[in-house]
């Protein structure tokens, strides 16, 4: 049990440290693609540092929920990070590999709990933007969840477990045979969901405060100072975790530094992909988001079908 706690702690620390870097990388790439000079890769760290030193303004209409929410959000995210096995940690401490708890369903619903905290916070201040952001966030989440479970189901059935560590082990043993038609469909379904869950174009635009379009930014509009820092860090961590999961159910990583390097490389490449999507696609209207989620759901259904015909 201690072993698992230590591993978990390491994974959480890694996520805390690396998540802003991933965010910085994507932002930097996007700027390059759009022909801007853009902020440096390290800017997210500087932002966090800056926020934490600033004072905080809290509206008089808010309750304790408003102050508790960022803590709740970060806590759930950190716990989720503790669950998720990481190739990097496994490479650094081979003795501890396989010790992560890695319960996939728990992981998904911990993140959902974080979302719940944020949505409450958005409502709490009583501003119209916050309420709108919260309602939109829950709308997207409600659509994404069945699709996510369906797509994950295919992978979980084939691995015979809901444990991410065990799934990773199955993937490793299967090698590239893991890439069957049904799994391909599941990966695609998950890709759509990852984009939606990380609040990126075409579902949400992370860079704007335009009231008509914002989802995530709407919810956190009232926040400033250290609270904002907590929220931002949690959101970036969530992005890191989701991409992690996605890559790990998809690519057969072995153990050792070579695979850790490969993992980092792929993560960087996925960042390129996200930046490309953000540069070349427009954000869709909020009422067309169900279509994207529907497409993902259909991919999940097809994946399940293809799985059972074989």
């Amino acid at each position, binding site marked *: 049990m201690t072993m698992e706690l230590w591993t978990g702690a390491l994974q959480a620390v890694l996520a805390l440290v690396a998540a802003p870097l991933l965010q910085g990388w994507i932002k930097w790439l996007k700027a390059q693609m759009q022909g801007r000079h853009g902020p440096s890769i390290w800017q997210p760290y500087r932002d966090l540092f800056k926020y934490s030193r600033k004072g905080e303004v809290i509206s008089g209409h808010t309750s304790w929920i408003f102050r508790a929410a960022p803590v709740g959000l970060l806590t759930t995210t950190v716990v989720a990070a503790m669950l998720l096995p990481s190739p990097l940690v496994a490479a650094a401490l081979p003795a501890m590999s396989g010790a992560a708890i890695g319960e996939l369903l728990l992981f998904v619903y911990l993140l959902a709990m974080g979302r719940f905290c944020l949505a409450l916070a958005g409502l709490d201040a009583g501003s119209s933007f916050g309420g709108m952001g919260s309602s939109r966030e829950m709308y997207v989440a409600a659509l994404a969840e069945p699709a996510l479970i369906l797509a994950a189901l295919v992978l979980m059935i084939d691995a015979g477990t809901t444990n991410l560590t065990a799934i990773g082990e199955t993937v490793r043993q299967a090698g590239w045979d893991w890439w*069957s*038609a049904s799994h391909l*469909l599941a990966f695609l379904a998950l890709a759509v969901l990852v984009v939606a869950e990380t609040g990126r174009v075409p579902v949400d635009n992370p860079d704007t405060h335009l009231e008509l379009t914002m989802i995530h930014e709407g919810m956190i509009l009232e926040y400033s100072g250290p609270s904002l820092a907590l929220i931002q860090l949690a959101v970036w961590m969530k992005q890191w975790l989701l991409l992690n999961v996605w890559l790990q159910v998809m690519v057969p990583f072995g153990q050792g530094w070579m695979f850790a390097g490969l993992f980092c490389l792929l993560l960087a490449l996925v960042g390129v992909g996200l930046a490309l999507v953000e540069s070349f696609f427009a954000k869709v209207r909020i009422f067309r988001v169900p279509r994207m989620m529907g*497409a993902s759901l259909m991919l999940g259904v097809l994946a399940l*079908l*293809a799985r059972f*015909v074989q």
Partner: protein
Amino acid sequence: MQLVEIVGTVLLLAAIWLVGNRRLDRAVVNLTIQALLLTLVALITAVVAGVHHMYGVALLLFLIKVVAMPMAFFWALRRSERVLEMQPVLSPVVATVGAVALVVMVYFAVGSIRLPVPAVMSGLLPVSLSVILLGILTMITHRKALLQVVGLMTMENGLFMLAMASTFGMPFIVELGIFFDVLVSAVIMGGLTHQMKVVFASTDTDRLNQLRG
């Protein structure tokens, strides 16, 4: 051969997308992507199974379906269509849902008849059948003459894929004949579409409603 199945599945996704698509030029792009995937299937079969005439088939596929036909289609589009947006019979969402429902049905049907086929076929058979039926669905749900041709070609793609995966293609002479027919049929349909444009001033097949009874 798992690779063939994956490529086939991507082709299936392209076909589903085609049913809900509502732009003429994207339909042609879609067809080109399908043809490219088909060429890939041919190459994989050639390499994996060591069937040498499949290299020839892949080359023919590439030249005819990836290069020649899309060029001809785009040329025809530029000449005859000013508006690339179509009015399909069904809304894209309904059409796509219908397409997926069709695929689901095919999977269940294939699952229930239990053919004595090896593992390669059992995965690809429903995929190919779905692509074939989606081709027909495309023809039903669109009014433009071009889309009918595209639907037909989609059907043929499904057939080619099945033939390549199950039997490593037909005997080469048959394969040549089929290619010849496909090419000629595309040319003739193109000619007919052009005549339609001249006579009816439109390529909507809705106008073809004189002959009854």
